[in-house]
């Protein structure tokens, strides 16, 4: 903790702030606001009630207008502090409003209606976390099903990605065969083809194989990635060939060498690829949108999209669900990010 505090308060100037300190802290602050601001806003907004979300000017904190539910009224009514003509102030709810004149009643005397100019009243605010945004989506929508679809696709696709890419990388890094360089080059060159170009051919293949509207239609086309092959190959090149020779002398089959020697030793690179793959598959939108058309097969991203109706959008639910959708990737990244840096570094060096 002390180290962290010292690191965060480190300055170049001794005792006072050097101009470089101002510059670097300013730069970092701008970066922080740019990167983290929208996320923070999203999270805070997800705790706002529907009414608070529609308020203008918008508030950063879930600090919405207080409401009172009167008997006989289905909707909760917004509460105001009203300055009455006789000079007194009372807390009243708004029944309706026409132009600049609002019809208000005192919740304690529900029969007495008062007409008030809207300039003579101000909103009663209270801090309110709309947790119901989160609890209600579980009941209102088939959230658990979407979650399961997303988790299934992400995990299975990541496992397949790791195994298949590692096998390709093993062959490309440890075997000498004719045209080996060409194969590698072709694999890498597919990086230059934008996914949108192969969208239609991919769709036709998946369709012919009868995998439309099935999670496998999302999983299989995503399994082989040039990035993964490249990353793993570069890492495997650093594993000494003598280890493989030693294993061969030890009666290990080539498959066993892959499974028992290469895979465990490539763990850092595999971790990096696993993180990438989880993020790619979890956040994937376009391809699942094309392959999956029935609601029960939707991933979370598709379900989020489906929330945006043509006429109305239930923003409070949409925001809550977006936060929930972000969580797994955030957690994966937070806990495994050190593998990304070390893995990329060591994959790049040699």
């Amino acid at each position, binding site marked *: 903790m002390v180290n962290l505090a010292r690191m965060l308060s480190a300055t170049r100037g001794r005792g006072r702030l050097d101009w470089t300190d101002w510059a670097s802290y300013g730069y970092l602050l701008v970066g922080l606001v740019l990167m983290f601001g929208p996320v923070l806003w999203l999270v805070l907004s997800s705790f706002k009630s529907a009414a608070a979300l529609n308020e203008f000017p918008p508030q950063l904190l879930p600090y919405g207008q207080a409401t009172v539910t009167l008997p006989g009224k289905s909707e909760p009514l917004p509460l105001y502090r009203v300055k009455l003509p006789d000079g007194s102030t009372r807390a009243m709810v708004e029944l309706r409003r026409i132009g600049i004149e609002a019809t208000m009643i005192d919740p304690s005397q529900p029969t007495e209606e008062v007409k008030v100019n809207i300039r003579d009243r101000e909103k009663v605010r209270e801090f309110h976390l709309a947790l119901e945004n989160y609890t209600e989506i579980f009941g209102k929508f088939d959230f658990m099903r979407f979650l399961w679809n997303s988790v299934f696709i992400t995990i299975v696709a990541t496992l397949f990605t790791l195994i298949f890419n590692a096998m390709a990388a093993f062959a490309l890094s440890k075997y000498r065969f004719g045209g080996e360089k060409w194969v590698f080059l072709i694999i890498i060159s597919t990086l230059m083809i934008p996914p949108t170009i192969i969208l239609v051919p991919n769709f036709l293949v998946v369709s012919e194989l009868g995998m439309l509207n099935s999670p496998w239609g999302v999983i299989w086309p995503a399994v082989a990635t040039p990035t993964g092959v490249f990353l793993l190959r570069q890492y495997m090149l650093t594993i*000494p060939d*003598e280890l493989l*020779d*030693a*294993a*061969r*002398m*030890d*009666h290990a089959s080539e498959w066993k060498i892959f499974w028992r020697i290469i895979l465990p*030793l490539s763990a850092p690179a595999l971790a990096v690829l696993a993180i990438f793959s989880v993020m790619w598959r979890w956040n994937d939108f376009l391809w699942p949108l094309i392959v999956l058309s029935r609601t029960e097969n939707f991933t979370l991203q598709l379900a989020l999209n489906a929330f945006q109706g043509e006429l109305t959008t239930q923003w409070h639910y949409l925001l809550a669900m977006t936060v929930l959708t972000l969580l797994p990737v955030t957690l994966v990244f937070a806990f495994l990010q050190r593998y990304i840096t070390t893995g990329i570094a060591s994959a790049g060096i040699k």
Partner: protein
Amino acid sequence: MASLELVGVVKRFDATTVIQGVDLRVEDGEFVVFVGPSGCGKSTLLRMISGLEAVTEGELRIDGRRVNDVSAAERGLAMVFQSYALYPHMTVYQNMAFGLENIRTPRSKIETKVRAAAALLHLDALLHRRPTQLSGGQRQRVAIGRAIVREPTVFLFDEPLSNLDAELRVQMRTEITALHQRLKTTMIYVTHDQVEAMTMADKIVVLRGGRVEQIGAPLALYNLPRNRFVAGFIGSPRMNFLSVQVAGVGPDGVRIASDASAMNAAAPLPVRGDAAVGRRATLGIRPEHIHLRRASTGEVGLTARIESLEQLGATSFLYCVLSTGEKLTVQMAGQVESRRGEAVVVSFPADRAHLFDETDDGLAFERLHPRATGRAG
């Protein structure tokens, strides 16, 4: 236990021929050392024997059976690699057990074998450590232990000591020799260090440029080098080479003359020479055979100037230069009182000198009376 035979073995990588026809026989239980400068093909030869490298031409036989097309695992050999090649993610125990697991040895038997090998190599306390937690010498022992547990017919060592410091190298050298005496298994050992070769081998194979230069017992190579290369490679410090001229050939040997004006070649060198008078040749004499005194009968004398000297206490090295500019190293027992720049008279017994052709091969002139040489190969 096995004998090994190489018949006209050739290795080519694309256009380059790395091994140019090697014939060799390794007897059962023998300790054979392949020695040569780097790039001479000694490691390639070892890898071909191990089965990790294919044989391009020729035949490789283990116990008389042709094994050219037998896989590395099936040949029943074990190899200790230069980098040890221990599996970094496995413990010492797992490293040693890996090979046995692969041939489906029962768990209890693996345990017995690994424990036995560990006891032999003093690794008992380290079985649950990982290679990164071991010192260089310990890693080396684990690598040897991994080879031992499989009870191979032949052990192959690929420069196993080159990553150790000098002191540890000497210690491991004696340990490997002791191991050989205990196991009595055939061992083939590759090194570029002629001291290792001299101290450990029953038989040394000197290689250069993918060709065998000479095969023989360590002392045979030392005393009767077949050519100039072997003479220069075996022995430390290096043998001195002086350019000379054949002055006469008689029944008692070859008389030589040198451009070094002070060379007093009174005694003929006892070698058989069919050479014409005036032909150029190279005289080789080891530093330890040169003395700081005037030539007496049967000796060759020289005058030289001391350029620098090293006193190690028990021995002293004088680095001299002749009037022709040729260098001459003299090794003396004990300490000397000479100084830099001093002119000295040195001599050596004529029968200690070697005479080589001044051709690329540098073949040695045949000796008239070969001295006792240990076990000749």
